[in-house]
């Protein structure tokens, strides 16, 4: 299934980025362990979102040219670690190219066999249910096998206007 655009006016990528940078996003690490090699794969997404409560589903999208996602999804079961404000280094480590990106990051294996990154706000264990292409991205729909909030709660990492930040409650 492919969603095609009907765009009467050309919007170049600079304009798209300039306007969409006004939308703040959370930062999530999507990770799994390769069942054959035992090596962890991971990537960062700024599009993780809630989708459905019944059944429990979440979604995110990833560039269709991503080399990380095919490796992560091959494991079948993967984790989403929602990053806290002091996990910028984790974000940078997983955004970099290369193998074994979790080697410099603290994590533990969950009962689902997925890596949970230490210090995160919450962890989701997920299974890929559907994927479809929309433009230059793939939309992933995943069922939630389990979801766990961290105790005590800490502040979230937020990406906004090209910078990292956190959340300040409105007065």
């Amino acid at each position, binding site marked *: 299934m492919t969603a095609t655009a009907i765009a009467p006016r050309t919007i170049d990528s600079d304009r798209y980025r300039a306007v969409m940078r006004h939308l703040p996003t959370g930062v999530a690490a999507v990770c799994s362990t390769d069942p054959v090699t035992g090596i962890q794969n991971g990537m960062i997404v700024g599009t993780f979102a809630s989708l459905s409560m019944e059944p*429990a589903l979440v979604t995110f999208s990833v560039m269709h040219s*991503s080399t990380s996602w095919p490796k992560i999804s091959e494991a079948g079961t993967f984790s989403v670690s929602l990053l806290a404000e002091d996990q910028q280094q984790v974000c940078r480590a997983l955004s970099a190219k290369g193998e074994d990106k979790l080697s410099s990051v603290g994590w533990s294996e969950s009962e689902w066999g997925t890596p949970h990154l230490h210090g995160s706000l919450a962890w989701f264990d997920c299974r890929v249910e559907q994927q479809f292409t929309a*433009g230059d991205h793939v939309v992933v729909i995943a069922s939630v*096998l389990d979801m766990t909030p961290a105790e005590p709660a800490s502040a979230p990492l*937020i990406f906004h206007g090209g910078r990292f930040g956190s959340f300040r409650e409105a007065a």
Partner: protein
Amino acid sequence: MDITPASTTALADITPAHYRQVLGKLPTGVTAITGVNDDDEKLGLVVGTFQSLSLDPPLVMFCVDKSSSSWPKLRKLQKFTANILSDDQISICRSLSRKGPQKFEGLPCTAGPLGTPHLDGATAYIDCVVTAEVVVGDHYMVVGAVTNMEEGTGDALLFRAGKFGQYLPIEIPAPESVPAKQAPVESVPARSAS
């Protein structure tokens, strides 16, 4: 088209309350989806799931609860504006989140290029034509093809754990070995939407 998984494999018992509690940890922007019908009735709903999707072609997406009474009316128009709300638009968010008609009454707005309402004071406007919609679980997932985008004013409104908020820049502490005056500027983070 319904693409709800035939049988999800959720072994843990994830109640709606637990789902809300854990996903409440995720900070989101607040976006008003607006349109106007042939009777000049302005329609609007608020979502926390508006996302960038594709650069080429330019696409965006959002998810809306099946129980929404506004979306069936907006869907008929097949076009909408996504207004990314600013941190002084909490009252507008509350107005548009109400159930029932006339929730748009008194909200200052101007018509965008598609004729859809641009709420005055939003931080960005993304005009779209609906290009795909699928049913997934208890929500509709809507994909919009972007026809126009404009920057507005102010800074974005945030929502998290049931509370409104603002973006708080993180001050990067200077390494101890570097005198404060020569503290490095924050390095540009890698794009997080890859």
